């Protein structure tokens, strides 16, 4: 036996086929405890007797040790003598043995065919949900046109401030850097042919037709789309969406329409602003690196950039705004009612928005080419 009942300890005494294990000390789950295999030291007793007379304080740590010994005895065909154990300990040991035997892993695995089938059905289901949601939003906007006094203008103005004015700093920074990058990249090629001045054309056309709208949309997908998804997802988890439904108020009218309208209105304005800032960024590089004066840059740019370029950029911006708003709100309303569900909704909103933005951009490129715009 060990002397002081402080740390969990055990000693063994072998007599023939019998092994007596004497336990002592305080057995705490957060502290170390003796290992049965080390105590056994390769012996194969036919009977194991456990004495706990020297044990001070104990908890599940002692229970686990006894269970380990008991399990070893069962496997080795030895007799486990726990008669001397206190009643409480024997009861708990019985509970542990029962929970060990009755615990059956919950099988969530699926066969290959089941997985493919489920995934296919989910794609079909999600497609239907998107179509249904877009239909609901359209009806909501029709309702807005018919009964504008019933629209939640205050919420819409708040959202316009959030997704528009509050996004100006990040849109400014990104657009300025994109304009600079375009100018640097263009200069690399154009300088070889002595066409430095055409950097202005490149930057102007790229920002007006493409990059202004695209970069703004990507920034807003990450900033506003994710925020919409998280907000609505959290409202769903808190049963706030259910509360609206039971009041007979359409969550789309109440929550989605103001956000969608705000984004649709703000996106072209931000896009136009991003376009201007991007051109300034390109101008700054042209002036500092290529020695092209801003006036020369401006004059050259106007020879190629016309209103159709700006308008095509604005048309794209409106579309991208609708996509970001729809993706954010849809994913938020589809979110699982848990913290993980809200996180997944936010991620999914960004991915969905960027995917559809790129698809829409490609479609516009083809359409504008056919129309000769």
């Amino acid at each position, binding site marked *: 036996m060990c002397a002081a009942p402080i740390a969990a300890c055990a000693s063994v005494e072998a007599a023939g086929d019998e092994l007596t294990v004497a336990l002592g000390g305080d057995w705490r789950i*957060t502290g170390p405890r003796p290992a049965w295999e080390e105590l056994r030291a390769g012996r194969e007793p036919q009977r194991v007797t456990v004495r706990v007379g020297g044990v001070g304080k104990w908890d599940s740590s002692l229970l686990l040790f006894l*269970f380990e010994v008991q399990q070893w005895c069962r496997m080795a065909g030895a007799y486990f003598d726990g008669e001397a154990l206190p009643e409480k300990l024997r009861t708990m040991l019985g509970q542990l043995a029962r929970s060990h035997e009755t*615990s059956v892993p919950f099988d969530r695995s699926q066969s290959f065919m089941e997985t493919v089938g489920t995934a296919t059905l989910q794609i079909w289901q999600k497609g239907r949900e998107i179509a249904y949601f877009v239909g609901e939003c359209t009806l909501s906007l029709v309702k807005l046109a018919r009964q504008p006094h019933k629209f939640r203008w205050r919420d819409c103005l708040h959202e316009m401030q959030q997704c528009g004015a509050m996004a100006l700093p990040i849109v400014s920074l990104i657009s300025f850097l994109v304009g600079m990058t375009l100018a640097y990249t263009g200069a690399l090629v154009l300088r070889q042919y002595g066409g430095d001045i055409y950097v202005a054309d490149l930057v102007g056309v790229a920002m007006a037709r493409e990059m202004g709208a695209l970069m703004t949309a990507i920034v807003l997908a990450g900033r506003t789309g994710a925020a919409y998804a998280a907000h609505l997802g959290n409202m769903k988890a808190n049963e706030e969406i259910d509360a609206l439904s039971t009041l007979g108020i359409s969550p789309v009218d109440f929550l989605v329409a103001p956000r969608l309208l705000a984004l649709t209105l703000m996106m072209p304005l931000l896009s136009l602003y991003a376009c201007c800032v991007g051109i300034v960024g390109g101008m700054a590089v042209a002036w500092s690196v290529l020695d092209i004066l801003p006036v020369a840059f401006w004059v050259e740019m106007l020879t190629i950039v016309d209103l159709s370029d700006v308008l095509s950029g604005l048309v794209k911006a409106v579309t991208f705004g609708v996509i970001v708003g729809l993706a954010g709100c849809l994913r938020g309303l589809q979110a699982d009612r848990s913290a993980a569900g809200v996180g997944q909704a936010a991620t999914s909103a960004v991915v969905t928005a960027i995917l559809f933005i790129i698809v829409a951009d490609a479609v516009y490129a083809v359409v504008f080419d056919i129309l000769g715009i």
Partner: protein
Amino acid sequence: METAAASAQPTEVPTIAVEGVACGYDGGLVVLKDLTFRVTRGEIFFIIGGSGCGKSTLLRNLIGIHQPLAGTVKFNGEPFQYHDPAARREMLKTFGVLYQSAALWSSLTLRQNVALPLEEYTALNHREIEELATLKLAQVGLTGFEDYYPAEISGGMKKRAGLARALALDPAIVFLDEPSAGLDPITSRKLDELVLQIREMFNTTLVVVSHELASIFSIADRVIMLDKASKGIIAEGPPRLLARESRDARVTEFLHRGDRLEAAP
């Protein structure tokens, strides 16, 4: 404050000693002040009172989520809130907390929820942790639900799983915040029985925040009653004694309704 003593005050160091504690929030909002009480080892101690009186605020101050505005909270004679992080971590091992919403981690199964404290604070191997987590879930009657996620079980089961997680490290003190809230009377009764079993098994000290009178009268050894208006303790003692002998209208109004409920068939 009114005090009803059922037995002689114990001379041992109290498990929890609250001395002159004031609780509140940023901006100078004081919810409770001058709180002094002791909880002894193995006691089932209830913090009771009407809604908004500061029960949960006091609990958050006891478990260190919020710092008291004044006073000290001592566990086994050791002040909790002024300890360095390493010492606090050691003390936290001796706590188990069941939150009002159960606060299970939604991305983990019930078994993983219970196993996490064991992985963090013990040197047990994976198999032992699984065994112990399964046992803890079995003790709260959740055999067969080990691999379910919190979103897949009912509110009562979440509470029991939260309790299993609170008990994972066999803590000396378990705090329960409104354990019966939102549960049906039968589930609530079973939870009360579970609390008694926990005390029976390890002589655990249980601090329960509740205003469920059925629970208070069936399992509480001693209660303190908080009052919103006076921002402090207005009664302390065994609940039946307080219900019988208290002359404070606020206490009798609160507790006598419980007697009528108990007498109901």
